[in-house]
């Protein structure tokens, strides 16, 4: 049904194809285990005396919690412990606090109110899953329902119910200044004014389940010396470890996470949905604890891909050139931030799609609504806007009476073109992809389109320039009235305020350093008067591993390291793992 072919002729001069095993379809080391059911996933680990954790979830979209009565549940058969919000050492977290992005806004167990249907309020630990589920039904929670809001634009209006007290305007706050993330490049209003055709359309991406074969879950067990072993399906092992350490308030080396073999994950296993409560349960009971979402919980309360509403306004010339594009988009974060705040940044960098357009602006909002928090999912920040952009491109082609492929090639970004986030494009290949797809699909292209190239025409004239740019102070935090404010400033052409990226750091590569690292010798083990150690000269490897493609031009030679070499955390930190390190 599916076939794949390689076009080795394209960009051949940029590659060395004389490699040993790179580029070969060799069988995966884990495949025999997968197909013979020998692979062990997190839930394939059994422990004596293991408890099962189940949570009591809110039946309301939005409600105050007036009282919680767990007395009947505590007396139920098999129940060993009941957890409430007060038992969680740090009962407020946001995932990206690990990289200092955003404010803690989500409790592990709700305390005074619930903000979405399915929000965990009480956790039950019992000898069996059935006993835990039965005890969940005995928990009495007295709710006072509150008005709820579900629409990403309604929630931003003054007077909408406050979903998330940490962000009282129902939007994520960017740069402690704005209710959205801005992108400004050139003057879109002037672009629209000069365009032959202006069109604006609204697009709506649906939420999507991750629906992994293996549902979210983990098993935590007391190890020894106050450590806890955690079998996890996390997509980021140290992300889950760090999140758990913060919530249960232990040092990171008290946690021993084992994972790495996961039964499907498209972003939903970045959230650490189960690890913190499983570890907390193991700490408080001294017993192994298994916390696994069943399929219904995964479907209803495992974080989905958030819905996005996207408005695109384009200015088009009759010859097919797009001269201005404005995008306004609303991410539906659900009740808490999780990772949505980051998607808006990623989306901003992606605007306006793989095209060069002289005037571009976008306003990306992250809205809180009373639904299950959404999170990262495959194509995070990009998939939905690509749907909107490419349907819009189809409309533009029709409006310009042009073939859709020709319109893409005409507007495609090429090497050297300035992107709206003020960095030049490089290593582009959109034109070639369109040409090859057209050829295979037998979709005729003009001779001009066939001759186009990502290497030609980019960065010419204004295409390489940062234009004079209109700035505004619209959408200030707590001031919805400022959303229609005027232009406040015109930033001169060529302005850049963010320092260019430093070269990637590849510490450890001896041939990436200014001088070769000396290898200390263990004199006692050596024969008398050993010859001086041969200074290591990186030999040109026979298959040129990455030599042409690793961090490109060698960074400007740093000053030669003074002996002893500066401590480098990689070596120091892990020196105990493999015994003797050369330092």
């Amino acid at each position, binding site marked *: 049904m599916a076939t794949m072919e390689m076009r080795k002729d394209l960009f051949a001069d940029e590659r060395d194809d004389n490699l040993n095993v790179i580029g070969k379809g060799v069988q*995966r080391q884990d495949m025999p285990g997968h197909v013979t059911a020998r692979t062990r996933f997190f839930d394939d680990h059994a422990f004596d005396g293991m408890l099962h954790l189940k949570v009591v979830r809110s039946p309301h979209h939005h409600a105050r919690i007036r009282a919680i009565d767990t007395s009947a549940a505590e007396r139920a058969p098999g129940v060993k412990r009941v957890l409430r919000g007060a038992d969680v050492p740090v009962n407020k977290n946001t995932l990206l606090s690990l990289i200092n992005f955003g404010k803690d806004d989500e409790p592990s167990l709700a305390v005074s109110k619930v903000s979405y249907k399915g929000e965990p309020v009480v956790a039950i630990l019992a000898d069996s899953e059935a006993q835990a589920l039965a005890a969940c039904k005995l928990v009495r929670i007295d709710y006072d329902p509150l008005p709820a809001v579900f629409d990403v634009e309604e929630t931003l209006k003054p007077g909408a119910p406050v979903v998330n007290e940490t962000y009282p305007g129902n939007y994520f706050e960017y740069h402690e200044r704005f209710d959205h993330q801005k992108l*400004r490049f050139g003057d879109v209003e002037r672009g629209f004014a000069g365009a032959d055709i202006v069109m604006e359309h609204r697009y709506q991406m649906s939420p999507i389940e991750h629906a992994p074969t293996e549902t979210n879950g983990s098993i935590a067990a007391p190890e020894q010396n106050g450590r806890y072993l955690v079998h996890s399906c996390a997509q980021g092992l140290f992300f889950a470890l760090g999140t758990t350490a913060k919530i249960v308030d232990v040092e990171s080396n008290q946690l021993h996470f084992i994972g790495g073999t*996961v039964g499907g994950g498209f972003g939903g296993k970045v959230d650490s949905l189960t690890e913190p409560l499983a570890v907390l349960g193991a700490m408080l009971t001294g017993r192994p604890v298994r916390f696994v979402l069943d399929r219904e919980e995964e479907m209803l309360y495992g974080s989905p891909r958030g819905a996005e509403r996207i408005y695109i306004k384009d200015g088009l010339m009759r010859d097919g050139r797009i001269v201005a594009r404005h995008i306004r988009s609303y991410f*539906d974060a659900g009740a808490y931030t999780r990772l949505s705040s980051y998607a808006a940044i990623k989306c901003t960098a992606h605007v306006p799609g793989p095209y060069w357009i002289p005037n571009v602006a976008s306003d990306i909002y992250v809205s809180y609504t009373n639904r299950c928090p959404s999170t990262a999912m495959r194509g995070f920040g990009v998939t939905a806007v690509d*749907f909107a952009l490419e349907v819009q491109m189809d409309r533009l082609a029709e409006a310009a009476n042009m073939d859709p492929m020709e319109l893409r090639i005409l507007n495609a970004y090429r090497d050297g073109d300035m992107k709206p986030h003020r960095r030049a494009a490089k*290593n582009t290949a959109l034109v070639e992809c369109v040409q*090859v797809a057209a050829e295979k699909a037998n979709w005729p292209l003009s001779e001009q389109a066939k001759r186009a190239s990502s290497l030609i025409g980019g960065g010419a004239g204004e295409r390489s320039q940062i234009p004079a740019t209109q700035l505004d102070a619209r959408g200030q935090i707590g001031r919805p009235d400022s959303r229609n404010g005027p232009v406040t400033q015109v930033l001169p052409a060529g302005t850049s305020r963010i320092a260019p990226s430093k070269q990637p750091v590849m510490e*450890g590569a001896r041939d990436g350093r200014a001088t070769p690292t000396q290898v200390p010798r263990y004199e006692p083990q050596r024969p008398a008067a050993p010859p001086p150690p041969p200074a290591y000269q990186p030999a040109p490897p026979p298959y040129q591993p990455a030599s042409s493609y690793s961090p490109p031009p060698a960074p400007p030679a740093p000053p030669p390291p003074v002996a002893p070499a500066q401590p480098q955390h990689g070596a120091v930190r892990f020196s105990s793992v493999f015994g003797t390190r050369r330092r």
Partner: protein
Amino acid sequence: MARHEGRGMASVNYPIGMNLGGDPSQALIHSNPDGKFTVALSAIDLGQGMKQVSRQIAAETLGVPIEDVYVDTADSDTGPHDMGSFASRGTHRMGNAIIVAAREARGVLLEAAAEELEVNAADLVTDGRGNIHVRGAPSRSITVKATAQAAQFKQGKTIAGRGIFLIPLSAVDAETGEMNPNTAFAHACLVADVCVDDETGEVEVLRMTSAYELGRVINPRMVEQQLVGGAWMGISHALYETPEPYYPNPEHGPRDFNEYLMPGPGDIAPYHVTVLERPAPDGPFGGKGPGEMCANPVLPAIANAVYNAVGVRVDELPITPEKILRGLKANGGVKPGPRRGGPVNWR
């Protein structure tokens, strides 16, 4: 009442790795006394093949047979820090960390061999089959195994390496959105052929034809697996899936796979992928990452093909029969677009 064929396309690019950087990956590599290497990571294999990509990159850089490399991931006691498997970052970030670690281990390996052969390490090359020999003089050789044994028991050397790859974190300007985002981008164009039933509103995807530019392909079979699986997810997003069918109304959520609609085996379309390789300047051997983008062009290509077939624009996903029938009614019937090209050039 009839079935109408239509054709649509979309082209996209995709950023590789966490958008703003600041997402390090580390790798540790060491040899046992027989010259068999273990790569210790904390990367996650979700089924996408992270272990195998790591293994091939390590074997290539070390210059040893792939059978002699085993990837051990992810145990927080032994595997060094890695941000995680998301954002299409695994191959690019971890691959680079592995190259760094493998180069260091290779350096020690060649030094140990040089000591045994009494030559300069700079004159040695590996043949990728388990031997190290003097460049231009294959007879002056030593096996990797013998070298490792000498290093361990005679010379007292650890054949090991450590590596980290980090793109430094970028700030974002509040007013202009200026930033230093991803350093590598992959590209794609996809053509979808669909058939729309104007009586039932059903859409059948007849076939898809795509071209993907992914930088260096590390393992073509795994690229194929990603692209084909992702295209299935794209069909599913475009035509079937949603937990909230009347979004933003939150009701009618599915509880299991009976209620959550996805395409079945009979709904999978024949698919042809052509892969282009423009190496990323900072990718491992020029590799990028096909993980996330492979569903993206499918959604708009199908939406555009539906429009081409019957003249109905569905701007709210998924494209359900209900939306198509309502669109046909609003339009006063089928309004097919222009024919685009002939039969595909593949089978």
